[in-house]
């Protein structure tokens, strides 16, 4: 079947994929072997991936919010597809953020999970975006579905901002902060105090951002192809 068309865009995506894979391998190796071992032990190395994945996921949710605004302004379905793709990728990355945080917390806080403000807001954020995927399927009419999803996608971004900044405004959180002073009750704090740690952190954040963009692009193409096939199906079946 396949008459796959090679375009400049697909060549860029292929290049981006190669870069993302290489960066991912290097970033993981840096986290495991290049960064010095913190007094917390080897588990502290999860932090580089944990923060990287959160930044990648937050970027994906930001892209979804911007795409949602653009859909409401332009009423072009490509922005609806972009928002859907970005939210799906954001859920994967922030899902890993939550899971990796729980794994770090077990030896450091002596618990997998606690209803701390930061952890709770992260869970609410994840659930809000998971609900996006379920709720948008409740609409038959594509226009209404896209309109509802766009409004929801914009409102849901407030949960990302809340999760990001809650450690700055709630002194009772035990979640440590790496950039700037930690909250007074923070437990398991550590400092990114060497150039190797800083470089590893920055490289991991960049890696997960590139990975997020690459995955969103692929998911967008899949969604577009799916809708094209659905439209074709309607044409063929209506003959």
């Amino acid at each position: 079947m396949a008459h796959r068309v090679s375009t400049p865009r697909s060549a860029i995506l292929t290049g981006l994929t190669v870069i993302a894979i290489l960066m991912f391998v290097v970033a993981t190796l840096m986290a495991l072997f290049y960064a010095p071992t913190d007094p917390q032990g080897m588990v502290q190395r999860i932090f580089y991936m944990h923060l990287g994945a959160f930044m990648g996921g937050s970027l994906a949710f930001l892209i979804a919010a911007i795409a949602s605004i653009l859909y409401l302004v332009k009423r072009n379905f490509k922005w609806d597809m972009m928002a859907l793709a970005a939210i799906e990728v954001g859920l994967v990355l922030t899902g890993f953020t939550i899971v990796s945080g729980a794994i770090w917390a077990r030896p450091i806080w002596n618990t997998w999970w606690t209803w701390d403000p930061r952890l709770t807001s992260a869970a609410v954020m994840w659930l809000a975006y998971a609900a996006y995927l379920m709720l948008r399927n409740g609409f038959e009419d594509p226009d209404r579905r896209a309109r509802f999803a766009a409004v929801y996608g914009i409102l849901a971004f407030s949960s990302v901002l809340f999760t990001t900044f809650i450690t700055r405004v709630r002194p009772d959180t035990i979640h440590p902060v790496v950039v700037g002073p930690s909250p007074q009750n923070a437990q398991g704090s550590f400092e990114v105090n060497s150039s190797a740690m800083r470089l590893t952190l920055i490289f991991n954040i960049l890696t997960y951002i590139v990975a997020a963009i690459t995955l969103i692009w692929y998911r967008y193409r899949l969604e577009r192809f799916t809708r094209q096939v659905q439209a074709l199906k309607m044409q063929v079946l209506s003959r």
Partner: protein
Amino acid sequence: MLLQQTAIPDNLSYLLLGLAMLALILGGYLVSYFVRLRNIRREAALLEQMQAEAPEAPGVSPASARLT
């Protein structure tokens, strides 16, 4: 006592668990992506076949040609 305070705890197993979860979550998503892609390509191929068997309708091009 001093040695107890400065000793680095052995929690390598948690790091390995974290890496396993990274592989599971990202790998699982990639598998789900490729399964969906395979299914939609099969559907596109079937529709192409149905199109080829039926009289040609104007303005309908093979679906798989549009995946750019």
